[in-house]
């Protein structure tokens, strides 16, 4: 009637251990690394766009200042009563401005009909400007506010030219390449991507290590409890873990003991019934 007498068969009664396909650490790692990646991407996104807006507005404000100085000079001449197309010196003014900055693609001055009167690209003189530029000087509600237009791969800043009768005589625009702004941004882009890749790689490793340690503990605890369960059920003995264990483990120990007791009791009862049955 001793414990050992029934131990033999009881182990076979427990089901085979179930394989762990997705460990806790793996699950939580997946969650945490995704959050890390998401956070880094958001951070990069905000940093990049902030930089983009500050940088491109800085570039634009510089070029609108250049355009403004040209506008001032052209208008001073207009105020002397000359017609825009007669101001031969304008060609010289815009060519000087272009020569000062290699990034300037072109400066052009056109009249209120949209005909290019002066252009650093002399071949373009006499052609018509794009409708958007023509519209910009026509509809500009304020005659002193600069306008900006994107034209394929150029950025354009411009100002209307106003004579002293208060009438828009034409416009002056400056073209510079989008590539210039993009070049300024690409450095940041590359650097950001690099540091994000690094940060994500390094801290993913930290996260995974940390989680394996953290959930390794949980797994071990569960494993040892399961081990105890199997052992006690198959071999017998006490389920109290070494070092006391916490409230849950104590309860679990009681569970193991109770189960073992129950199994033994039922087994005893079965044997007793068998004995009685065989009595005849």
């Amino acid at each position, binding site marked *: 009637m001793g414990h050992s007498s029934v131990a033999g068969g009881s182990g076979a009664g427990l089901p085979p251990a179930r394989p762990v396909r997705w460990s806790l650490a793996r699950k939580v790692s997946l969650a945490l690394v995704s959050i890390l990646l998401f956070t880094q991407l958001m951070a990069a996104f905000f940093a990049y766009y902030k930089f983009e807006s500050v940088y491109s507005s800085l570039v634009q404000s510089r070029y609108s200042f250049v355009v403004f100085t040209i506008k001032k000079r052209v208008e*001073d001449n207009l105020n002397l*009563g000359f*017609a825009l*197309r007669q101001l031969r010196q304008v060609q010289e003014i815009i060519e000087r401005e272009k020569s000062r900055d290699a990034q300037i693609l072109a400066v052009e001055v056109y009249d209120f*009909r949209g005909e290019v009167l002066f252009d650093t690209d002399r071949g373009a003189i006499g052609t018509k400007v794009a409708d958007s530029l023509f519209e910009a000087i026509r509809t500009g509600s304020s005659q002193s506010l600069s306008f900006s237009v994107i034209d394929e791969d150029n950025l354009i800043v411009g100002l209307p030219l106003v004579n*002293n*009768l*208060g*009438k*828009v005589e034409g416009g002056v625009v400056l073209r510079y390449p989008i590539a210039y702004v993009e070049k300024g941004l690409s450095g940041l882009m590359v650097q950001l991507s690099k540091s994000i890749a690094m940060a994500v790689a390094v801290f993913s490793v930290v996260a995974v290590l940390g989680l394996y340690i953290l959930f390794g503990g949980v797994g071990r605890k569960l494993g040892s409890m399961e081990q105890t369960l199997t052992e006690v059920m198959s071999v017998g003995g006490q389920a109290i873990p070494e070092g006391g264990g916490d409230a849950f483990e104590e309860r679990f120990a009681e569970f193991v003991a109770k189960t073992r007791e129950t199994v033994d009791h039922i087994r005893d009862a079965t044997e007793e019934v068998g004995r009685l049955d065989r009595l005849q």
Partner: protein
Amino acid sequence: MRRLASLAVMLCALFLGPMTGGAWAAEPAAKPYRIYMALWRGWEDAAQGFKDYFANQGIPVELIIRDAGQDKEKLKEFVAEAKSLQVDLVFTWGTTVTEEMLGRYDDPDKQSHITKIPAVFAIVSQPLGGVVPSLVSSGRNITGTTYLVPMETQVNLIQSYRPLKRLGMVFNPLERNSQVAVEQLTSIGHSMGFDLVALPVDVAEGKPRPASIALKVAELKAARVDFIYIPPDTFLNINRDLLTQAALDHGIPTFAAAENPVVTSKAMFGGVYRYYTVGQLTAYKAEQILVHKMAPGDIPIDAPKRLSVLINMPVVRQLGLFPPMKLLGLAEVIDRAEGKEIKP
């Protein structure tokens, strides 16, 4: 707002030239507008500005130019001629020509004046209360431009050069223009906080005496004025060298309300509307009538938007009273030491 709208319409119209009756050079078949120009004392800058505007804008015009040579009698013939030629528009130069040909607003005598043909006027010193009842609208078939800088603007301009405590002025008591200027400056001085010391030149036998000008300037010096204001006064215009030299000798800066004392004499600086610009603005109004078919009564009477500031650099250097940078940036500088007028 209305101005902007009309501007947009105008640009539109020009762009679609042929559809609106053809107004510009690219449409050679268009019949030129016929404009009758009545002048008072010959061809000068306002007339040139008027003419150049059409050339610059590519508006074909045929100008019929008549000069009265300061003879009032000729103006009646002009009226008759303009009517018989059936011109599209009449341009009148000066107060006399305008009042004689177009009539005062309260006395439009149909027979002796031009009433059916639209007209634009220029260089009329006091259009308000004369040829028009209001600057917003003439109420009839004419419009035009003013050319005198408002007194407040002039005072502001002087103040922007140097703050002002006492303003000196020599004037011809026989000219109404000058008397008006004295009255206006006195009241502006009250509100802006400066005193006006206005001294009339001596009058002998009903005529002002040029010799007294230097004496008056000396008196102003004694009164320690900061600036001398030179009104648009015919007598002083003729004797401008006497006046500006006397002021320069006493080291007093001068401000002129007219072009000549600065450009051809020794006034230190001035603020004017250039006749040329006024002529262009007048042509702009003519364009609105002829090309854009606006009713003249709907076109307000006004002055150019931007004042011409003239600075006489040799005088500035002699006085050592240098203009503020902002004003210098706006100004047309006359610097004969360099042998020419230097424009910004």
